């Protein structure tokens, strides 16, 4: 009896459940005791949670990029991948929302951003776009949710209506592309407009955030699909499709590497208060390992080679490693960017030297952060098992049934 209960699947869910429980405790503590129990300070007011927020939005970007590719640029055969990406996007954006609710000091006033508009604020624009785009993602995932067996059996009408949203996919893709281009860039600009912190103050910020989000988002979707297909028979992938998109990611990485490297290293030619110190931190100081090894080497150069060199790209194992590394590199970029701007404390007293702040996330922050990630993993796992989120054989059948409706075995 017990042996039947303990399967890899239930063990995995139990493991995630423990992490989620930890997060529930941490979250309750934060709402009850306030942000005082975090290690955030007036000098470093944004830390681990904002990194999770930025990263999950970035890694959810596969949804808009692949949907745009499929429905706007006519790359129809990649539709099965776009379908997975949409679901991953929905998970990413809900993760970001969770992180933000924890992170703001007055979570009960989250709706103020919808009522009180400061159209000049990048964060206002990001909030509006994220809310609207979350709605788009929900509509886009309707046909996926409609796959739920229970829904199909009990509420076939609702299920078929939800499936019908599929016909609006091109319109949703246009809206999604617009909203995503806006807020993915604006998240970079959120930092890029802050003149008080010279390390951030530059126009490239929005370009880099956008580009890295597209690359990281597509990579995570491909990686998650491949991993799922290795672990369960519920996930069926068309490896040729993934391989082609992976090659595309390889080419994109060249461009990203070019921009990121020049963006960072063109700062070196003269001393610029604040900016030079920030550059020192990421190239020689505290974050040097993150920058050189995680971001540059493992996040860009290694996967670039693995994805552009045909034998390694054709090898599923190496391709998976490469795609995973890309996603990790994008997260490292978000972390490094956010934290460096805070660690360098610009003096306002004339002639005073630049000071350095420090930040280590507290246990509560880590527990809540891990739980947010665990939520994402749970949602994806359930999606793979019950909603056929990763099923590249599914879509062709769907298109056929639209044409020949009579053959559809509808259970009423």
């Amino acid at each position, binding site marked *: 009896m017990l042996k039947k209960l303990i399967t890899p699947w239930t063990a995995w869910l139990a493991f995630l459940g423990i992490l989620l429980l930890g997060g529930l405790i941490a979250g309750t503590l934060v709402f009850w005791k*306030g*942000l*005082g129990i975090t290690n*955030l300070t*007036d*000098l470093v*007011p*944004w830390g681990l949670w904002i990194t999770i927020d930025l990263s999950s939005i970035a890694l959810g970007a596969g949804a808009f990029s692949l949907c745009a590719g499929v429905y706007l640029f006519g790359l129809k055969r990649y539709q099965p991948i776009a379908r997975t990406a949409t679901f991953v996007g929905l998970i990413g954006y809900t993760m970001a929302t969770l992180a933000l609710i924890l*992170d*703001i*000091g*007055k979570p009960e*006033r*989250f709706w*103020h*951003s919808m*009522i*009180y*508009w*400061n*159209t*000049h*604020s*990048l*964060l*206002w624009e990001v*909030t509006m776009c994220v809310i609207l785009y979350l709605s788009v993602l929900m509509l886009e995932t309707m046909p996926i949710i409609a796959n739920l067996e229970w829904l199909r059996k009990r509420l076939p009408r609702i299920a078929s209506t939800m499936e019908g949203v599929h016909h609006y996919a091109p319109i949703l893709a246009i809206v999604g592309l617009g909203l995503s281009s806006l807020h993915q860039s604006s998240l970079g600009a*959120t930092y890029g*407009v*802050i*003149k*008080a*912190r010279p390390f951030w103050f530059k126009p490239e910020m929005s370009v880099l955030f956008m580009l890295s989000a597209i690359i990281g988002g597509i990579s995570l979707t491909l990686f998650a699909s491949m991993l799922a297909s290795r672990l369960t028979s519920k996930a069926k992938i068309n490896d040729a499709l993934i391989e082609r998109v992976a090659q595309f990611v390889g080419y994109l990485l060249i461009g990203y590497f070019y921009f990121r490297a020049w963006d960072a290293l063109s700062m070196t030619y003269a001393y610029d208060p604040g900016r030079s110190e920030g550059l020192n931190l990421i190239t020689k100081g505290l974050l040097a390992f993150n920058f050189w090894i995680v971001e540059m080497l493992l996040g860009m150069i290694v996967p670039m080679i693995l994805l552009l060199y045909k034998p390694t790209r054709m090898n599923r194992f190496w391709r998976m490693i490469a795609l995973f590394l890309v996603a990790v590199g994008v997260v490292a970029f978000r972390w490094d960017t956010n934290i460096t701007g*805070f660690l360098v404390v*610009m003096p*306002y*007293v*004339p*002639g*005073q030297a630049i000071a350095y702040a420090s930040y280590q996330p507290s246990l509560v922050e880590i527990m809540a952060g891990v739980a947010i990630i665990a939520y994402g993993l749970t949602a994806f796992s359930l999606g793979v098992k019950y909603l056929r989120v990763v099923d590249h054989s599914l879509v062709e059948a769907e298109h056929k049934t639209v044409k020949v409706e009579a053959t559809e075995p509808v259970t009423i």
Partner: protein
Amino acid sequence: MSDKRSSPMEKNINRREFLKLTAVGVAVAAGSRAVTSSKASSAAPKGKHQWAMVIDQSKCVGCGYCTLACQAHNDVNPEIQWNKVLKDGTVGEKQVFLPRPCMHCEKAPCVEVCPVEASYYRDDGIVMMDYDRCIGCRYCQVACPYEARSFNWEKFEGENPAVPEWGYPEVERRPRGVPEKCSFCYQTIDRGLALGKQPGVDQDATPACVNACPTGARMFGALNDPESNVSKALHENPSYRLRENLGTGPRVYYLPAVDKKEA
């Protein structure tokens, strides 16, 4: 035949042009609405008074009375200082100090970045906080070049150690989860003006830190009044503002301490 060929073409072009014009029109309308409707985005409106503070560093002895008076009158958590007194090198043998309230910038980054317009300009130039509207995202803290904002990481409970020795609270305590900052004691200014007093001249209408200063290092008044003490002080002495290169236009001016022997 040629008519038939040309007319749809024309129609087509017309339609396209029409669409183009409509798109441009909508964009312009939306853009102008966004710009004009946003109270926060425009520079501070010019009211009757334009308040400013002048701090004479040659007079400041770093006693910190200003900070204590501020904490009492504004009921500030002892862990938070709206008005911080910092060391600023030496002139000759003498230690020089730099008290730092909120700069009440003319182009305040905190006002520009606040997603909900919880930070805003008053007509008299004071940069205000609406503590009931703030969602606690701390973007203003990130954007402020002067570290003038402190977040309420915890709820301020219990007695205020600065009360009653340094004064009595005149404003409500801020809740946990919002940042707070100096307001030039707007409550004192408003009440004083209503009573016919003159801020910067009559104590009843002047910020607490200015009143508390034992050496008279702080001056307060209207910058747009050439006869005010601040205008005169700035006219007669060299002055500077903090991080002026950022273009924030602070309303707090400093008269630098000078070496008397050299001068």
